[in-house]
Protein backbone atom coordinates (compact mmCIF):
# COMPACT_ATOMS: atom_id res chain seq x y z
CA UNK A 1 0.00 0.00 0.00
CA UNK A 2 1.40 3.39 -1.01
CA UNK A 3 1.35 6.44 1.24
CA UNK A 4 1.04 10.09 0.34
CA UNK A 5 3.51 12.78 1.39
CA UNK A 6 1.05 13.74 4.14
CA UNK A 7 0.73 10.30 5.69
CA UNK A 8 2.44 11.24 8.94
CA UNK A 9 0.18 14.27 9.31
CA UNK A 10 -2.88 12.03 9.04
CA UNK A 11 -1.58 9.55 11.58
CA UNK A 12 -0.68 12.33 14.02
CA UNK A 13 -4.16 13.83 13.63
CA UNK A 14 -5.77 10.48 14.48
CA UNK A 15 -7.32 10.01 11.04
CA UNK A 16 -8.91 6.69 10.16
CA UNK A 17 -6.98 5.33 7.18
CA UNK A 18 -8.40 3.04 4.51
CA UNK A 19 -7.06 1.67 1.22
CA UNK A 20 -8.21 3.78 -1.74
CA UNK A 21 -6.86 3.73 -5.26
CA UNK A 22 -3.72 1.93 -4.12
CA UNK A 23 -2.99 4.42 -1.32
CA UNK A 24 -3.63 4.42 2.40
CA UNK A 25 -5.97 7.43 2.64
CA UNK A 26 -7.82 9.21 5.45
CA UNK A 27 -11.54 8.44 5.30
CA UNK A 28 -12.25 10.68 8.27
CA UNK A 29 -10.66 12.76 11.03
CA UNK A 30 -13.19 14.16 13.54
CA UNK A 31 -16.18 12.60 11.78
CA UNK A 32 -17.76 12.71 8.34
CA UNK A 33 -20.72 14.93 9.27
CA UNK A 34 -18.58 17.42 11.20
CA UNK A 35 -16.15 17.65 8.27
CA UNK A 36 -19.02 18.04 5.82
CA UNK A 37 -20.32 20.93 7.93
CA UNK A 38 -16.91 22.62 7.91
CA UNK A 39 -16.77 22.57 4.10
CA UNK A 40 -20.32 23.86 3.63
CA UNK A 41 -19.96 26.69 6.16
CA UNK A 42 -16.25 27.44 6.65
CA UNK A 43 -13.59 25.39 4.86
CA UNK A 44 -12.00 21.96 4.82
CA UNK A 45 -8.53 20.76 3.87
CA UNK A 46 -8.16 17.57 1.83
CA UNK A 47 -5.17 15.44 0.91
CA UNK A 48 -5.80 14.31 -2.67
CA UNK A 49 -2.24 13.30 -3.42
CA UNK A 50 -3.43 9.83 -4.41
CA UNK A 51 -4.81 11.28 -7.65
CA UNK A 52 -2.65 10.82 -10.70
CA UNK A 53 -0.81 13.86 -12.05
CA UNK A 54 0.69 13.68 -15.52
CA UNK A 55 2.61 16.45 -17.23
CA UNK A 56 2.07 16.79 -20.96
CA UNK A 57 4.44 18.84 -23.11
CA UNK A 58 4.91 19.54 -26.78
CA UNK A 59 3.25 21.65 -29.46
CA UNK A 60 0.71 18.97 -30.26
CA UNK A 61 -0.74 18.25 -26.80
CA UNK A 62 -4.11 19.85 -27.56
CA UNK A 63 -4.44 18.30 -31.00
CA UNK A 64 -3.56 14.81 -29.69
CA UNK A 65 -5.76 15.15 -26.58
CA UNK A 66 -8.70 16.17 -28.71
CA UNK A 67 -8.56 12.82 -30.50
CA UNK A 68 -8.86 10.94 -27.20
CA UNK A 69 -11.39 13.01 -25.25
CA UNK A 70 -15.01 14.12 -25.60
CA UNK A 71 -14.61 17.78 -24.52
CA UNK A 72 -12.59 20.42 -26.36
CA UNK A 73 -8.94 20.85 -25.41
CA UNK A 74 -7.64 23.09 -28.19
CA UNK A 75 -10.01 25.91 -27.28
CA UNK A 76 -8.70 26.14 -23.71
CA UNK A 77 -7.12 29.46 -22.82
CA UNK A 78 -3.79 29.68 -21.00
CA UNK A 79 -4.28 28.98 -17.26
CA UNK A 80 -7.70 27.49 -17.87
CA UNK A 81 -8.91 24.19 -16.41
CA UNK A 82 -11.48 21.95 -18.07
CA UNK A 83 -13.27 18.74 -17.11
CA UNK A 84 -12.87 16.04 -19.74
CA UNK A 85 -13.57 12.35 -20.27
CA UNK A 86 -11.56 9.71 -22.08
CA UNK A 87 -13.88 7.10 -23.59
CA UNK A 88 -13.46 3.68 -25.14
CA UNK A 89 -14.71 2.82 -28.65
CA UNK A 90 -18.14 1.88 -27.28
CA UNK A 91 -18.44 5.25 -25.56
CA UNK A 92 -17.87 3.89 -22.02
CA UNK A 93 -15.71 6.07 -19.79
CA UNK A 94 -12.04 5.14 -19.54
CA UNK A 95 -11.57 7.91 -16.96
CA UNK A 96 -12.88 11.35 -16.09
CA UNK A 97 -10.18 13.95 -15.67
CA UNK A 98 -9.27 17.61 -15.54
CA UNK A 99 -6.88 19.29 -17.96
CA UNK A 100 -4.98 22.36 -16.72
CA UNK A 101 -3.32 24.47 -19.41
CA UNK A 102 -0.19 25.94 -17.77
CA UNK A 103 2.50 28.24 -19.17
CA UNK A 104 4.94 25.71 -20.62
CA UNK A 105 3.01 22.45 -20.17
CA UNK A 106 -0.31 20.85 -19.43
CA UNK A 107 -1.29 19.11 -16.22
CA UNK A 108 -3.68 16.18 -16.53
CA UNK A 109 -5.26 14.95 -13.30
CA UNK A 110 -6.67 11.42 -13.41
CA UNK A 111 -8.43 9.24 -10.84
CA UNK A 112 -6.14 7.32 -8.50
CA UNK A 113 -7.71 3.97 -9.32
CA UNK A 114 -7.27 4.65 -13.05
CA UNK A 115 -3.78 6.17 -12.94
CA UNK A 116 -1.96 3.07 -14.10
CA UNK A 117 -4.51 2.23 -16.78
CA UNK A 118 -4.43 5.82 -18.05
CA UNK A 119 -0.64 5.97 -18.06
CA UNK A 120 -0.47 2.82 -20.18
CA UNK A 121 -3.20 4.12 -22.47
CA UNK A 122 -1.58 7.52 -23.00
CA UNK A 123 1.98 6.29 -23.41
CA UNK A 124 0.80 3.95 -26.17
CA UNK A 125 0.11 6.86 -28.51
CA UNK A 126 1.78 9.99 -27.12
CA UNK A 127 5.37 9.53 -28.36
CA UNK A 128 4.32 8.91 -31.97
CA UNK A 129 2.09 11.99 -31.74
CA UNK A 130 4.91 14.26 -30.63
CA UNK A 131 3.69 14.55 -27.03
CA UNK A 132 6.02 14.04 -24.07
CA UNK A 133 4.51 12.58 -20.90
CA UNK A 134 5.88 12.70 -17.39
CA UNK A 135 4.29 10.65 -14.63
CA UNK A 136 4.21 12.58 -11.35
CA UNK A 137 1.83 10.15 -9.63
CA UNK A 138 2.90 9.80 -6.01
CA UNK A 139 5.64 12.43 -6.36
CA UNK A 140 3.59 15.59 -6.68
CA UNK A 141 1.10 16.27 -3.91
CA UNK A 142 -2.41 17.73 -4.16
CA UNK A 143 -3.97 19.66 -1.29
CA UNK A 144 -7.48 21.06 -1.68
CA UNK A 145 -9.01 23.80 0.42
CA UNK A 146 -12.76 23.88 -0.10
CA UNK A 147 -15.52 25.99 1.41
CA UNK A 148 -17.03 29.48 1.39
CA UNK A 149 -14.14 30.93 3.42
CA UNK A 150 -11.38 29.44 1.23
CA UNK A 151 -10.37 32.77 -0.33
CA UNK A 152 -9.89 34.60 2.94
CA UNK A 153 -8.09 31.64 4.54
CA UNK A 154 -5.75 30.91 1.64
CA UNK A 155 -5.02 34.48 0.48
CA UNK A 156 -2.44 35.34 3.19
CA UNK A 157 -0.47 32.22 2.22
CA UNK A 158 -0.17 32.77 -1.54
CA UNK A 159 1.46 35.34 -3.83
CA UNK A 160 -1.37 35.53 -6.35
CA UNK A 161 -4.63 37.47 -6.09
CA UNK A 162 -7.32 34.87 -5.48
CA UNK A 163 -10.50 36.94 -5.71
CA UNK A 164 -10.16 37.80 -9.42
CA UNK A 165 -9.36 34.20 -10.34
CA UNK A 166 -12.34 32.68 -12.13
CA UNK A 167 -13.81 29.24 -11.45
CA UNK A 168 -11.90 26.63 -13.46
CA UNK A 169 -8.86 28.84 -13.95
CA UNK A 170 -5.47 28.59 -12.28
CA UNK A 171 -2.20 30.40 -11.65
CA UNK A 172 1.41 29.39 -11.13
CA UNK A 173 2.59 30.95 -7.90
CA UNK A 174 3.78 30.12 -4.42
CA UNK A 175 2.09 28.80 -1.30
CA UNK A 176 4.12 29.70 1.79
CA UNK A 177 7.02 30.30 -0.58
CA UNK A 178 6.73 26.86 -2.19
CA UNK A 179 6.08 26.75 -5.96
CA UNK A 180 2.57 25.52 -6.74
CA UNK A 181 -0.18 25.48 -9.31
CA UNK A 182 -3.10 27.17 -7.58
CA UNK A 183 -6.39 26.27 -9.26
CA UNK A 184 -9.93 27.33 -8.52
CA UNK A 185 -11.31 23.82 -8.94
CA UNK A 186 -12.81 21.24 -6.62
CA UNK A 187 -15.19 18.38 -6.05
CA UNK A 188 -17.43 19.57 -3.23
CA UNK A 189 -19.92 22.00 -4.75
CA UNK A 190 -18.31 24.86 -2.83
CA UNK A 191 -15.86 27.57 -3.80
CA UNK A 192 -12.29 26.45 -3.24
CA UNK A 193 -8.81 25.82 -4.53
CA UNK A 194 -6.57 22.91 -5.38
CA UNK A 195 -2.84 23.24 -4.78
CA UNK A 196 -0.49 21.10 -6.86
CA UNK A 197 3.00 21.05 -5.42
CA UNK A 198 6.14 19.01 -4.79
CA UNK A 199 5.41 16.14 -2.40
CA UNK A 200 8.54 16.84 -0.40
CA UNK A 201 7.27 20.28 0.61
CA UNK A 202 3.59 19.37 1.02
CA UNK A 203 3.62 18.63 4.75
CA UNK A 204 4.86 22.17 5.53
CA UNK A 205 1.95 23.67 3.60
CA UNK A 206 -0.57 21.30 5.19
CA UNK A 207 0.65 22.06 8.72
CA UNK A 208 0.85 25.80 8.20
CA UNK A 209 -2.62 26.09 6.72
CA UNK A 210 -4.18 24.03 9.51
CA UNK A 211 -2.27 25.93 12.17
CA UNK A 212 -2.98 29.42 10.82
CA UNK A 213 -6.57 28.85 9.63
CA UNK A 214 -7.69 26.48 12.38
CA UNK A 215 -9.00 29.41 14.46
CA UNK A 216 -11.15 30.45 11.44
CA UNK A 217 -12.65 26.97 11.31
CA UNK A 218 -10.47 25.13 8.77
CA UNK A 219 -10.65 21.39 9.44
CA UNK A 220 -8.84 18.42 7.91
CA UNK A 221 -11.36 16.39 5.91
CA UNK A 222 -11.29 12.84 4.63
CA UNK A 223 -12.62 11.00 1.63
CA UNK A 224 -15.84 10.15 3.49
CA UNK A 225 -16.93 13.78 3.67
CA UNK A 226 -15.71 14.33 0.12
CA UNK A 227 -18.01 11.60 -1.16
CA UNK A 228 -21.08 13.08 0.58
CA UNK A 229 -20.19 16.57 -0.68
CA UNK A 230 -19.71 15.51 -4.30
CA UNK A 231 -22.90 13.41 -4.30
CA UNK A 232 -24.96 16.34 -3.00
CA UNK A 233 -23.38 18.51 -5.69
CA UNK A 234 -24.37 15.96 -8.37
CA UNK A 235 -20.79 15.25 -9.42
CA UNK A 236 -20.02 11.79 -10.85
CA UNK A 237 -17.55 9.46 -9.16
CA UNK A 238 -15.68 7.12 -11.45
CA UNK A 239 -16.67 3.51 -10.76
CA UNK A 240 -20.16 4.61 -9.73
CA UNK A 241 -21.82 7.03 -12.16
CA UNK A 242 -19.18 6.52 -14.87
CA UNK A 243 -17.49 3.24 -15.76
CA UNK A 244 -16.09 1.45 -18.81
CA UNK A 245 -19.75 0.46 -19.40
CA UNK A 246 -21.59 3.63 -18.32
CA UNK A 247 -21.08 6.35 -20.92
CA UNK A 248 -20.99 10.14 -20.35
CA UNK A 249 -24.31 10.34 -22.24
CA UNK A 250 -25.89 7.93 -19.75
CA UNK A 251 -24.33 9.87 -16.88
CA UNK A 252 -25.97 13.10 -18.08
CA UNK A 253 -22.65 14.71 -18.98
CA UNK A 254 -23.61 15.72 -22.51
CA UNK A 255 -22.59 19.31 -21.69
CA UNK A 256 -19.02 18.01 -21.90
CA UNK A 257 -19.60 16.15 -25.19
CA UNK A 258 -18.44 18.18 -28.17
CA UNK A 259 -19.79 16.39 -31.22
CA UNK A 260 -18.62 19.26 -33.44
CA UNK A 261 -15.01 18.16 -32.83
CA UNK A 262 -13.40 16.03 -35.57
CA UNK A 263 -13.06 12.31 -34.94
CA UNK A 264 -12.32 11.19 -31.36
CA UNK A 265 -12.43 7.82 -29.60
CA UNK A 266 -16.03 6.90 -28.84
CA UNK A 267 -17.57 9.74 -30.87
CA UNK A 268 -19.74 7.67 -33.21
CA UNK A 269 -20.99 5.41 -30.40
CA UNK A 270 -21.86 8.39 -28.20
CA UNK A 271 -23.56 10.27 -31.05
CA UNK A 272 -25.63 7.22 -31.94
CA UNK A 273 -26.58 6.56 -28.33
CA UNK A 274 -27.62 10.12 -27.82
CA UNK A 275 -29.69 10.01 -31.00
CA UNK A 276 -31.49 6.77 -30.01
CA UNK A 277 -32.33 8.17 -26.59
CA UNK A 278 -33.24 4.65 -25.41
CA UNK A 279 -30.46 4.13 -22.87
CA UNK A 280 -30.50 3.52 -19.13
CA UNK A 281 -29.46 6.76 -17.47
CA UNK A 282 -28.22 8.18 -14.19
CA UNK A 283 -30.89 9.98 -12.17
CA UNK A 284 -31.02 11.49 -8.71
CA UNK A 285 -33.27 9.88 -6.12
CA UNK A 286 -34.57 11.30 -2.87
CA UNK A 287 -35.74 8.67 -0.41
CA UNK A 288 -39.03 9.15 1.38
CA UNK A 289 -37.91 7.48 4.61
CA UNK A 290 -34.87 7.38 6.83
CA UNK A 291 -33.32 4.17 5.51
CA UNK A 292 -30.19 4.88 3.44
CA UNK A 293 -30.03 3.51 -0.11
CA UNK A 294 -26.69 1.89 -0.87
CA UNK A 295 -24.80 0.91 -4.01
CA UNK A 296 -26.26 -2.15 -5.72
CA UNK A 297 -29.74 -2.05 -4.18
CA UNK A 298 -32.48 -2.77 -6.78
CA UNK A 299 -34.74 0.08 -7.92
CA UNK A 300 -38.32 -0.80 -8.89
CA UNK A 301 -41.23 0.81 -10.69
CA UNK A 302 -44.65 -0.79 -10.17
CA UNK A 303 -43.00 -3.95 -8.89
CA UNK A 304 -40.61 -4.30 -11.82
CA UNK A 305 -36.86 -3.79 -11.48
CA UNK A 306 -35.87 -0.77 -13.60
CA UNK A 307 -32.40 -0.09 -12.25
CA UNK A 308 -29.98 -0.10 -9.34
CA UNK A 309 -28.44 2.32 -6.90
CA UNK A 310 -24.95 3.56 -7.89
CA UNK A 311 -24.19 5.86 -4.91
CA UNK A 312 -26.16 6.74 -1.80
CA UNK A 313 -25.77 8.76 1.37
CA UNK A 314 -27.49 10.80 3.98
CA UNK A 315 -27.41 14.41 2.76
CA UNK A 316 -27.06 17.08 5.45
CA UNK A 317 -27.37 19.83 2.80
CA UNK A 318 -30.55 18.31 1.35
CA UNK A 319 -32.69 18.50 4.48
CA UNK A 320 -30.90 15.52 6.02
CA UNK A 321 -32.72 13.26 3.57
CA UNK A 322 -31.23 10.15 2.07
CA UNK A 323 -30.18 10.76 -1.52
CA UNK A 324 -28.85 8.44 -4.18
CA UNK A 325 -27.95 8.13 -7.81
CA UNK A 326 -29.44 5.31 -9.80
CA UNK A 327 -28.97 3.93 -13.30
CA UNK A 328 -32.56 3.45 -14.49
CA UNK A 329 -34.44 2.61 -17.68
CA UNK A 330 -35.54 5.71 -19.61
CA UNK A 331 -39.25 5.26 -18.80
CA UNK A 332 -38.42 5.61 -15.08
CA UNK A 333 -36.16 8.65 -15.44
CA UNK A 334 -38.49 11.68 -15.49
CA UNK A 335 -38.18 14.04 -12.54
CA UNK A 336 -40.99 13.33 -10.08
CA UNK A 337 -41.36 9.65 -11.04
CA UNK A 338 -42.28 7.54 -8.00
CA UNK A 339 -39.96 4.56 -7.60
CA UNK A 340 -39.08 2.11 -4.82
CA UNK A 341 -35.72 0.92 -3.54
CA UNK A 342 -35.49 -2.63 -2.20
CA UNK A 343 -33.55 -2.60 1.06
CA UNK A 344 -33.09 -5.91 2.87
CA UNK A 345 -36.24 -7.30 1.29
CA UNK A 346 -38.47 -4.29 1.96
CA UNK A 347 -39.54 -1.64 -0.55
CA UNK A 348 -38.85 1.99 0.38
CA UNK A 349 -40.33 4.97 -1.46
CA UNK A 350 -38.08 7.17 -3.56
CA UNK A 351 -38.70 9.78 -6.20
CA UNK A 352 -36.62 11.02 -9.09
CA UNK A 353 -35.16 14.44 -8.27
CA UNK A 354 -33.28 16.95 -10.42
CA UNK A 355 -29.47 16.98 -10.23
CA UNK A 356 -27.62 18.52 -8.55
CA UNK A 357 -29.33 17.97 -5.22
CA UNK A 358 -27.41 20.90 -3.76
CA UNK A 359 -26.29 24.16 -5.31
CA UNK A 360 -24.44 26.80 -3.32
CA UNK A 361 -25.78 30.34 -3.09
CA UNK A 362 -23.89 32.51 -5.57
Amino acid sequence: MKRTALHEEHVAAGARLVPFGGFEMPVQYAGILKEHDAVRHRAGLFDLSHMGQFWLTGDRVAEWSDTLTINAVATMKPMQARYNIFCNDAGGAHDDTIFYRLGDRWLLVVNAANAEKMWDYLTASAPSSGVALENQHGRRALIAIQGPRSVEMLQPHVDVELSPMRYYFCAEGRVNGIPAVIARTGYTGEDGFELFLDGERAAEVWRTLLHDCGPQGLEPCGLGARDVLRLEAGMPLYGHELTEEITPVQAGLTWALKLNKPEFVGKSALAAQRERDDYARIVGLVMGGRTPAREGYPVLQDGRVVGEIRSGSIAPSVGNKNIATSLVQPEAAAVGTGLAVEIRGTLHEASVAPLPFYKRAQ
Partner: protein
Amino acid sequence: MAQPEDLLFSKEHEWVRLDGNSATIGITDYAQNALGDIVYVELPKVGATVAQFANIGVIESVKAVSDLFTPMSGEIVEVNAALESDPAAVNREPYGAGWLLKMRLTNPTESKTLLPPAEYEKIATD
Protein backbone atom coordinates in the same frame (compact mmCIF):
# COMPACT_ATOMS: atom_id res chain seq x y z
CA MET B 1 -11.95 4.73 27.93
CA ALA B 2 -12.96 2.66 30.92
CA GLN B 3 -16.16 0.66 30.60
CA PRO B 4 -19.12 1.28 32.94
CA GLU B 5 -18.79 -1.12 35.87
CA ASP B 6 -22.44 -2.18 36.04
CA LEU B 7 -22.53 -3.68 32.52
CA LEU B 8 -21.62 -6.94 30.82
CA PHE B 9 -20.26 -7.06 27.29
CA SER B 10 -20.24 -9.27 24.22
CA LYS B 11 -17.27 -9.76 21.93
CA GLU B 12 -19.39 -8.16 19.19
CA HIS B 13 -19.32 -4.89 21.18
CA GLU B 14 -22.80 -4.90 22.66
CA TRP B 15 -23.45 -4.09 26.30
CA VAL B 16 -26.08 -5.57 28.63
CA ARG B 17 -27.53 -4.01 31.76
CA LEU B 18 -29.18 -6.77 33.80
CA ASP B 19 -32.19 -6.12 35.98
CA GLY B 20 -33.50 -9.42 37.30
CA ASN B 21 -34.98 -11.28 34.32
CA SER B 22 -34.86 -8.19 32.13
CA ALA B 23 -32.01 -6.56 30.25
CA THR B 24 -31.29 -3.32 28.45
CA ILE B 25 -28.98 -3.62 25.46
CA GLY B 26 -26.88 -1.19 23.49
CA ILE B 27 -23.59 -0.92 21.63
CA THR B 28 -20.36 0.12 23.31
CA ASP B 29 -18.48 3.37 23.06
CA TYR B 30 -15.77 1.53 21.16
CA ALA B 31 -18.37 0.29 18.66
CA GLN B 32 -20.00 3.68 18.07
CA ASN B 33 -16.59 5.25 17.58
CA ALA B 34 -15.55 2.56 15.11
CA LEU B 35 -18.79 2.97 13.14
CA GLY B 36 -18.57 6.76 12.91
CA ASP B 37 -21.61 9.01 12.46
CA ILE B 38 -24.68 6.79 12.89
CA VAL B 39 -27.54 7.77 10.58
CA TYR B 40 -30.02 4.89 10.87
CA VAL B 41 -30.86 2.14 13.34
CA GLU B 42 -33.16 -0.75 12.40
CA LEU B 43 -34.41 -2.69 15.44
CA PRO B 44 -36.60 -5.79 15.83
CA LYS B 45 -40.34 -5.47 16.50
CA VAL B 46 -41.63 -5.44 20.05
CA GLY B 47 -42.85 -8.96 20.83
CA ALA B 48 -40.24 -10.68 18.66
CA THR B 49 -38.34 -13.57 20.22
CA VAL B 50 -34.62 -13.61 19.54
CA ALA B 51 -31.88 -16.16 20.22
CA GLN B 52 -28.48 -15.29 21.63
CA PHE B 53 -26.01 -14.01 19.00
CA ALA B 54 -28.74 -13.83 16.31
CA ASN B 55 -28.69 -10.97 13.83
CA ILE B 56 -31.57 -8.75 14.98
CA GLY B 57 -31.11 -5.51 13.08
CA VAL B 58 -28.70 -3.11 11.43
CA ILE B 59 -26.85 0.04 12.39
CA GLU B 60 -25.88 2.29 9.53
CA SER B 61 -23.22 4.96 9.58
CA VAL B 62 -22.62 7.43 6.76
CA LYS B 63 -20.32 4.95 5.06
CA ALA B 64 -21.42 1.48 6.10
CA VAL B 65 -24.16 -0.97 7.05
CA SER B 66 -23.34 -3.12 10.10
CA ASP B 67 -25.30 -6.03 11.54
CA LEU B 68 -26.59 -5.86 15.08
CA PHE B 69 -26.44 -9.05 17.13
CA THR B 70 -28.24 -9.78 20.38
CA PRO B 71 -25.96 -10.75 23.25
CA MET B 72 -28.76 -12.69 24.99
CA SER B 73 -31.96 -14.63 24.20
CA GLY B 74 -35.34 -13.20 25.01
CA GLU B 75 -38.49 -11.40 23.97
CA ILE B 76 -38.24 -7.77 22.88
CA VAL B 77 -40.38 -5.67 25.21
CA GLU B 78 -39.31 -2.17 24.16
CA VAL B 79 -37.17 -0.50 21.50
CA ASN B 80 -35.70 2.99 21.76
CA ALA B 81 -38.14 4.88 19.51
CA ALA B 82 -36.20 8.13 19.93
CA LEU B 83 -33.44 6.71 17.72
CA GLU B 84 -35.76 6.90 14.73
CA SER B 85 -35.45 10.69 14.64
CA ASP B 86 -32.13 10.94 16.51
CA PRO B 87 -29.86 7.99 15.65
CA ALA B 88 -26.84 10.12 16.62
CA ALA B 89 -27.80 9.57 20.27
CA VAL B 90 -25.95 6.26 19.93
CA ASN B 91 -22.78 8.25 19.19
CA ARG B 92 -23.33 10.81 21.90
CA GLU B 93 -24.46 8.56 24.74
CA PRO B 94 -23.93 4.90 23.89
CA TYR B 95 -24.54 3.84 27.49
CA GLY B 96 -27.39 6.31 28.14
CA ALA B 97 -29.90 7.87 25.74
CA GLY B 98 -28.46 5.76 22.92
CA TRP B 99 -29.66 2.42 24.36
CA LEU B 100 -31.22 0.15 21.72
CA LEU B 101 -33.75 -2.21 23.26
CA LYS B 102 -35.09 -3.94 26.35
CA MET B 103 -35.84 -7.64 26.55
CA ARG B 104 -37.36 -10.20 28.87
CA LEU B 105 -34.68 -12.87 29.16
CA THR B 106 -35.56 -16.46 28.36
CA ASN B 107 -32.23 -17.79 29.57
CA PRO B 108 -30.66 -15.45 32.15
CA THR B 109 -27.74 -17.84 32.73
CA GLU B 110 -26.39 -16.75 29.31
CA SER B 111 -24.99 -13.78 31.18
CA LYS B 112 -22.19 -16.10 32.27
CA THR B 113 -20.99 -16.17 28.67
CA LEU B 114 -20.60 -12.39 28.61
CA LEU B 115 -17.52 -10.41 29.55
CA PRO B 116 -17.06 -8.27 32.66
CA PRO B 117 -15.80 -4.69 32.04
CA ALA B 118 -12.12 -5.45 32.60
CA GLU B 119 -12.23 -8.38 30.16
CA TYR B 120 -14.04 -6.36 27.50
CA GLU B 121 -11.54 -3.53 27.92
CA LYS B 122 -8.84 -5.89 26.62
CA ILE B 123 -10.55 -6.45 23.27
CA ALA B 124 -11.79 -2.88 22.89
CA THR B 125 -8.43 -1.19 22.66
CA ASP B 126 -7.40 0.37 19.41
